[in-house]
């Protein structure tokens, strides 16, 4: 059975100019421990889908199941990481990391112990008492990931988490994320607009075509080496799926 399953998911927003259809008929599944990238151009609805799966917004059509249970609001099985990290500026790193546990009424000594574990794992122990604005962008996002992992979620939902980082930091965090994932074997749903990032990270890439969003998926074999022709061919294929009209125009 698939751990995470979307069937015929649609989302229509009410706006002043009338209803706007952001998603239509989305089918997407991820098995336990699978790393799936949602790849699409901006405005294609990939972040909207993630918000629906996180239970932050209500779908207007279809069904979403997490761990076999029909989703109604945020699930205990998932944690979300945002692009702008979503750290509370008035809390120290440690208190930020503890927040998700606090929200679930984990007793404070257990919270502190688990936070210490993650601080060590993310190499943040020296910064436990700092405030978020005293950290670099990459470190902030590591705090965001640590916070998401504290509750041992079975699925990690990541909304362009490295989108605001410089190339070097991004590359390092991608590798760290893969290490964490190999170690913890959580399902990962990772939204990105970067083909390179998707090809580097994912077991499977779900490509969004925009307005309203629809999905075609493609599976990628591991291990991956960016230097090989195979890798280049994958990127080419994804680019063709992502922007077919642009690709056609470039050829002619």
């Amino acid at each position, binding site marked *: 059975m698939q751990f995470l399953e979307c069937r015929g998911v649609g989302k229509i927003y009410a706006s002043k100019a009338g209803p706007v259809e952001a998603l239509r008929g989305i089918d997407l599944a991820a098995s336990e421990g699978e790393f799936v990238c949602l790849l699409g151009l901006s405005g294609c609805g990939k972040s909207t889908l993630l918000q629906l799966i996180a239970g932050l917004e209500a779908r207007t059509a279809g069904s979403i199941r997490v761990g076999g249970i029909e989703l109604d609001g*945020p699930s205990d099985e998932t*944690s*979300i990481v945002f692009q702008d990290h*979503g750290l*509370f*500026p*008035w809390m120290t790193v440690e208190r930020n990391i503890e927040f*998700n546990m*606090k929200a679930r009424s984990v007793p404070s000594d257990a919270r502190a112990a688990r936070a210490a574990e993650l601080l060590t794992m993310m190499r943040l122990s020296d910064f436990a008492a700092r405030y978020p604005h005293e950290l670099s962008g990459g470190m902030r996002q590591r705090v965001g990931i640590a916070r998401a992992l504290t509750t041992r979620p079975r699925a990690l939902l990541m909304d362009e988490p490295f989108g605001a980082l410089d190339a070097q930091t991004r590359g390092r965090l991608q590798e760290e994320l893969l290490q964490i994932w190999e170690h913890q074997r959580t399902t990962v749903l990772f939204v990105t607009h970067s083909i390179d990032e998707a090809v580097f990270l994912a077991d499977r890439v779900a490509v969004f075509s925009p307005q309203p969003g629809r999905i075609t998926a493609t599976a990628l074999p591991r291990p991956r080496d960016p230097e090989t022709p195979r890798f280049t061919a994958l990127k080419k294929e994804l680019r063709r799926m992502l922007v077919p009209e642009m690709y056609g125009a470039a050829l002619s």
Partner: protein
Amino acid sequence: MPSRVFGLLPLLALLALWQAVSWAQIYPTLLLPPPAKVAAAFVTEYPDILRNAAASITRVIVGVSLAFCFAVPLGLLIGRYQILDVLADWSIQIFRSVPPISLIPMALLLFGIGDKPAIVLIFLAATWPLLINTIFGVRSIERTLIKVARAARASEQLIFRDIILPSAMPAVFTGLRLAIGGGWLTVVTAEMIAVKSGLGYMILNAQLTFRSELIVAGIVVIGAIGLISDQGVRALRARVCRWQEGLTAEAE
């Protein structure tokens, strides 16, 4: 940052100007006392000045404290729940436009002469800036932060305590500074009409008895207390909102 001592320059210039004007005998000494005479008044009249200052300060503290306990919780609720905002918005806009001084006659009719009308007027003067700034503070919370809390399934109580209250705190302090300023303006005026003690009463009484040096002494005390209380609130804010250090352009 330039030394704070710089801030004394305009005051010293004003003092020099005052001295020059009294030497030039533009006004008779009886109407515009020279600085030395005012200094002498401080020495001889200090028990009186102290007693009246204490009376005024007490009224402001009581009035502003009452307003704080009323307006801040109310502002947090109005900021958080749109229905309360719709309910309260027009009333707030109407009542905050009424200068508290214009309510003195009404306050006299309802509460007579004494502390009560003065405190009621200070309460009214202090309520609006506190209420409006608290609402604004709640409104300006980053949306992502609320999403983080919802995704973590934080209770409404935890959201209020750990997110809404701390993130509104800087705005609450802005409101408090304005409230104390407004309360201070109101107390002096109210004391000229509604009470038989306090700095406002002292000044008005000094005018009736041609003690112009006491008028000036009263003004100096009012200004000094205003400066000290504002510095106090800023220091308190810097402590409570320590996380804000380095986040804003305003270096305190």
